[in-house]
Structures are given as structure tokens and as C-alpha cells.
């Protein structure tokens, strides 16, 4: 069965997490996932949910309608985009009255939406549509020397009811299974389920960075070689802000972060440059040395 999706990049990935985009496209090609770009996609609507929920819903509906027009479902790289688009898709497909109201607004933009688009995070596409067996078959390089701690983040799994509970948010396992299927060693740690703090970085930097620090402390203690991420905003906290945490608290981690497509890409035999590993905020030199 051909796996084909419209790829929803959102705001952060194409500007601040290009290595995620590069590696996701590369890995998709290798796994036979066809990704279709829709240049008219806007912000998903998540950042205005706290301010005005009707606007979030209409922005999400417009994005969903663009994919529907082309007969495609959506795959996302950012977990916040995943949650807002999934929530809107579910509400609009099950509530005819709401769909009618949204269509009255969409009409003013010359658009309409019938409620058909489905949304799935790219990691979940690999986990479910491709499947762990195929992932294992795609492995060409031994990366078993790498110990990798997965950060699930919040919106990849929760609220679980909008994601058909494909993974258990209290005992998450899907990302560890993906790391294992790629041939690396998954590392468990105490604060695995905790939030990165990214959503309140602009409200209270002290609290947000403390939240980031807690997890960096725990992951470092377990001797992981890298953190595995599936959200560009979590990367802003663990990657871009790792140095800030280090200088603020007088600690040292130098802990590389990898997006899951980079982990899998390495295992699939792709070169670090092809996966734009050098663009990650913490240079993964030590990690690459381990791979030889």
C-alpha cells in the first residue's frame, strides 16, 4: 500500500529546525512515504488558542481544506501542529453543526471543507503505516553503540482521546520501540513523561528553563549519548537553550539532540551531512565518533 501524505511543516520547522525537515524528507524517500508540499499552508493555529479559540479552529479548518482539495491526509513534524489539526479534524468530522458554522466562515475565503482530512504525526506514520518490521528491514548501519533517551513531549501523545490512544501517555513506548527498531539502545529515565516547558518560555523563562534542566539532568545521569525528539519546539528547549541552562545553573551536559528521522537515517546508512546533523545546535561529534 502506497503511503502518501501532504506534509504540514508549520512555522518552526522550516525556519528553526531545517535539519528535521531535511532528514524527514530523506527518510521518507527511503521508506517509500510520498510527501506532497502545499505552499498555501499557514500556521496551524496553536499559538492563538490561548487568545481566541475560534480563530484557531478556522485556521486549522482552512489548512485541513487545502489537503482535502487534493484528496490527501496530513502528516506533521511538530507535535503542537499535530494536536491542533487533529482536534479540529475530529471535531469537524463528528459535529455537523460546527462544520456548518465553520463553512460559513470559510465561504468568505472562497473555501469549503467536508470533514474528510485525517492527521498523523510523522513518527506515528513510521510507527503505524510503515511498521516496525519494515523499519528493521531498512537498517543498513549498526548503531547499537548508541544509547538514546526519547523525549515524547506532550502533544505527540496527549490528549490521548484525540489520538485513538495509539500509545499510553502514562507508559509511553512508541518512540523507544522506534529507536530499538533502528538498532540503537533505548534509555529509560525518571522524568520521561515530563514537559519541556517550551510553551511558557515567553511567560516565565525561569520556570521554563527549570523544567528543561530537570530532564537534561536525568538524561545525562543515565549516560545517554543523545536525546531523541519529534517536535521542533522541544528542540528549542533542549537544543538551542541547552547552553543557556548550562550557564544559568553552572552545569555541563553537551548532550546532542537528534530528531527521530536523523536516528533512523543514520541506521539506514545515510551520511551525517545528508541528514544535516551539523546543523543541530549541539554538535553530535562524540556520537558520530562512537559510530566510527
Amino acid at each position: 500500500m502506497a503511503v502518501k501524505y501532504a506534509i504540514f511543516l508549520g512555522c518552526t520547522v522550516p525556519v528553526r529546525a531545517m535539519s528535521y525537515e531535511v532528514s524527514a524528507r530523506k527518510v521518507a524517500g527511503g521508506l517509500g512515504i510520498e510527501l506532497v508540499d502545499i505552499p498555501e499552508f499557514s500556521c496551524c493555529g496553536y499559538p492563538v488558542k490561548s487568545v481566541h479559540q475560534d480563530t484557531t479552529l478556522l485556521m486549522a479548518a482552512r489548512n485541513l481544506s487545502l489537503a482535502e482539495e487534493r484528496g490527501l491526509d496530513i502528516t506533521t513534524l511538530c507535535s503542537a501542529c499535530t494536536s491542533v489539526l487533529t482536534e479540529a479534524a475530529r471535531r469537524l468530522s463528528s459535529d455537523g453543526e460546527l462544520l456548518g458554522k465553520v463553512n460559513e466562515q470559510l465561504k468568505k475565503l472562497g473555501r469549503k471543507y467536508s470533514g474528510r482530512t485525517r492527521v498523523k504525526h510523522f513518527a506515528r506514520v513510521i510507527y503505524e503505516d510503515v511498521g516496525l518490521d519494515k523499519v528493521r528491514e531498512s537498517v543498513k548501519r549498526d548503531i547499537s553503540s548508541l544509547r538514546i533517551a526519547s523525549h515524547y513531549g506532550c502533544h505527540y501523545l496527549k490528549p490521548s482521546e484525540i489520538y485513538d490512544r495509539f500509545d499510553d501517555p502514562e507508559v509511553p513506548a512508541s518512540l523507544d520501540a522506534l529507536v530499538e527498531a533502528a538498532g540503537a539502545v533505548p534509555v529509560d529515565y525518571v522524568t520521561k513523561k515530563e514537559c519541556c516547558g517550551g510553551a511558557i518560555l515567553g511567560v516565565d523563562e525561569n520556570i521554563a528553563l527549570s523544567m528543561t534542566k530537570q530532564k537534561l539532568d536525568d538524561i545525562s545521569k543515565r549516560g545517554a549519548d543523545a536525546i531523541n525528539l519529534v517536535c521542533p519546539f522541544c528542540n528549542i528547549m533542549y537544543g538551542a537553550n541547552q547552553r543557556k541552562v548550562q550557564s544559568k545553573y553552572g552545569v555541563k551536559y553537551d548532550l546532542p539532540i537528534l530528531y527521530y528521522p536523523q536516528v533512523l537515517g543514520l541506521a539506514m546508512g545515510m551520511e551525517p551531512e545528508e541528514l544535516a546533523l551539523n546543523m543541530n545546535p549541539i554538535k553530535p561529534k562524540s556520537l558520530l565518533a562512537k559510530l566510527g
Partner: protein
Amino acid sequence: MDIVITDLDPRFKHEVAKEEGGERVKYCFQCGTCTSGCPVSEIDSKYNPRCIIRMVILGMREQVLRSDFIWLCSTCYTCYERCPQDVRITEVMNALKNMAVREGYIHPAFRAQAELIGSHGRLYEIDEFTEEKREELGLARLSGDIAEVAEIFKITGLAELLSEASQEPVRTASA
């Protein structure tokens, strides 16, 4: 925080329950599961979801809507998953913030984000530096501003809301 009985607004909880996301607020029986698992409360007790919901039920309208602490929810949905009464606390917080905005209180970080999205259709303006970097990596150019989003802001009334004067939420020691 002092509770002045003559200042309480008994209609407030009903108002919140009518707001999208706030529907189940009255089901709260104050067990504290939300606060005990909250990653923000763990670091700073100023944010206390159980307490905020109690304030809603008591009718402390002003103290809730103008306070800065309602903006501290990191929307991690841990409480949402665990609440035995299915109060859907994360969505209650969204409802409260939406109401606060209409009362003229908007956190400056959220105002700035909304204004950027209203102008560009995205959180970041796409500059030539970004486009060049993308080209180097073999990625397609981005399509600049998405003008339809400005239209959306007008249709929903958010553009008008943002054009009105607003205040920063009031700093408070704790809920």
C-alpha cells in the same frame, strides 16, 4: 489571597461553563490530582490548577481573569489525562485565557505571537537569509506571507480584539 464574600460573583462558574473548553468546570471535587502531577506547579507553586478552579467556583472573577498565573499553564495535558472528574483542566485554562483577553487582559508574549501570525500567517517572517539557507540544503523556498490568515483574523473578530487597548495581567504571588 483574601476572599471577600461581597466581591464574589456567583454567576462566574456558569459563565465559564458556557465558554468553549470550560463546560465541565463545575464537576471539580477538589482532589488535587491536577496540581500534584503538574510540571509547572512542581517548580513554582504560584501556578496551582486546583486552586484556580476553586476560585472559579467561588466566583472570584476579577482575581482569576486579570491574574498572570492563568497564563502559566504549559498545556502538557497531564492533568487532563488524570482528572477523575474529567474536568478537562487544560481546556478550562484556555477558556479562562480567552475570557481574560475579552476583558482586556492579554499576556504580552501571546499578544506578540498573535500579531505576528495576523501579519504573516506564520510565527516567523520569512527573510532572505532563511530562504538562502533552505536553498543550500536543497529545500524548497517558502511562500512568504499567507495573506488569508489576516482575513481569518477579521472574520473571527480577533483583529478587532487586538486593535483594542489591553493590559498586562497583574502579577500575583500565588493563586
